[in-house]
């Protein structure tokens, strides 16, 4: 007897144990035996690319993804998604809660996964045309309708709060470009970086490097967005754990820094007011 409720997959297949239809005897990822062959023989990044792309990638692509993953692994405690996880960790929240906080905050349009996705959409639309890039970076979205995402406030992939390209961004771009296809997105970004920075008025950000790397890995914006979120979780995790150990007394509490501009004072009456016009 089987259930009438089935889930469809074009990359994952399972065979069950004879004794239990709810336990897998073998799992196949795009035809490859995961526990029989992939886990013993492949590396983590080779397997990640197989999962996302459905086909084996070249060793060069696995190295490119590995170095990108290392570059993204810990954005450090100044970065908003990591700070969010630290806020969870310091209060002794669940591990899942801390990482959910990192995922939510790290999904944003300023330095987050949404920015990577928008930048990757521009790669699809602009290709290697500098003039088109310069136009679209100023106006990345063309749909005038309101959406669950607010309009972009800066050129995607660049940092409006930056002055010069930070050294880690430059060194990551240089390393990844050396590992990427010669005619790829990273190579073009390396060549045109200064021109693009001059055009938008502020420097390239890590999100821009990541977006170009995902393009060179053959991923689409949704895939790049997901991987960007996944690859930054190690830093969020360890900073959350560290703050949990440090304790809340060492953690900033910004109460004194918040100035209320319209404080009614302590002597307001108890009366409730009616509707405001």
């Amino acid at each position, binding site marked *: 007897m*089987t*259930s009438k*409720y*089935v*889930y*469809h*997959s*074009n990359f*994952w*297949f*399972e065979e*069950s144990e004879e004794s239990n*239809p*709810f*336990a897998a005897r073998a799992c*196949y990822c*795009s*035809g*490859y035996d995961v526990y029989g062959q992939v886990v013993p*023989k*492949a590396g983590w990044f*080779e397997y990640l690319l197989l999962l996302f792309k*459905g*086909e*084996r*990638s*070249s*060793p*060069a692509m696995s190295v490119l993804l590995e170095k990108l993953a290392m570059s993204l692994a810990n954005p450090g405690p100044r970065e908003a998604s990591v700070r969010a996880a630290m806020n969870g960790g310091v209060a002794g929240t*669940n591990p*899942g*809660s801390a990482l*959910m906080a990192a995922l*939510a905050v790290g999904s944003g349009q300023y330095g987050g996964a949404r920015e990577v996705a928008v930048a990757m959409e521009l790669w699809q639309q602009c290709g290697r045309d500098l003039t088109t890039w310069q136009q679209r970076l100023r106006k990345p979205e063309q749909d005038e*309708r*309101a959406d*669950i995402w607010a309009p972009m406030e800066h050129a995607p992939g660049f940092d*409006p*709060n*930056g*002055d010069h390209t930070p050294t880690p961004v430059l060194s990551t771009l240089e390393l990844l470009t050396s590992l990427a296809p010669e005619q790829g997105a990273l190579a073009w970004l390396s060549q045109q970086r200064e021109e693009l920075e001059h055009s938008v*008025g502020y420097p390239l950000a890590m999100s821009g490097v990541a977006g170009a790397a995902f393009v060179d890995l053959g991923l689409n914006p949704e895939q790049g967005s997901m991987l960007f979120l996944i690859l930054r979780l190690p830093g969020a995790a360890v900073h959350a754990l560290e703050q949990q150990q440090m304790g809340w007394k060492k953690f900033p509490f*910004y*109460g004194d*820094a*918040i*100035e*209320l*501009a*319209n*404080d*009614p004072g302590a002597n*307001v009456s*108890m*009366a*409730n*007011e*009616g*509707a*405001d016009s």
Partner: protein
Amino acid sequence: MSHRRLLDTESHWLTNRGKAFLTERVVMHGRDLHKQLGNYEWLHLYLFSILGRDPGEQVYRLLNYYYVATSFPDPSIWPNHVTALAGSVRTTPSLALMAGLSISEASIYGRRPEVRALDFFYRAGRWCDEGKSLTEFVELEKSQGRIIYGYGRPLASADERISHTLEKAKEWGFSDGRFLNMALDVYEYLRTTYGYSMNIAAIDAALAADVGLNAEEYQLFMTPIFLAGMTPCFLDAAEKPEGAFFPMRCTSICYGGPAKREWSDNKEETPS
């Protein structure tokens, strides 16, 4: 631009939204939370927290009904399903409910259709203000390949919430608003021309437009709306045996990918 604008807020945050003077008092949008807002019902306060003003009893009562009418305690509904899965594997209530709320910001139900429907009515209103016809606007949207959100519902052809919501709109004095009438006119056109149905997203958005909510306010207000439907689903699954919520057998994965193949040791032979 440069980093210099960050210096202003590095150790100072000027706001008129609110502050907790801990151990003393709390101010929200210029009002003392406990003295001036203490008699509010919670959803009324939530609305105040978004708008920074009290829209009045009638608006609050109308919008409160959105929450009541959308509290479906049915685990087949996808956000509720996530919450039930969380209960089935014994995760915590907070993680369960946040996961369910998080996926409520979806494209085929929930937040995106709601925001897009609200935006549709505002844009249609501006179009009509120029003396052009509503049906022309609908056709223009369709010709651009755009979904007319609020018309046609996945998995069902009728929406049981509409008649109840229209009754509440009448009860609270919103039955003759410009955008509600527009929503009904659009429905009539799409029904007679294309056989479309209407769902609650159109009615809720039109009434929200008549109330004057903008897209961000509406999105914020609607975000927790599935909550009361989720908790029964969580509890129900948590009370039953671990892992018992619609378990999947291996053969329930219907596979359509490549056939079994060998993982060759020679990686250089593989394509890039």
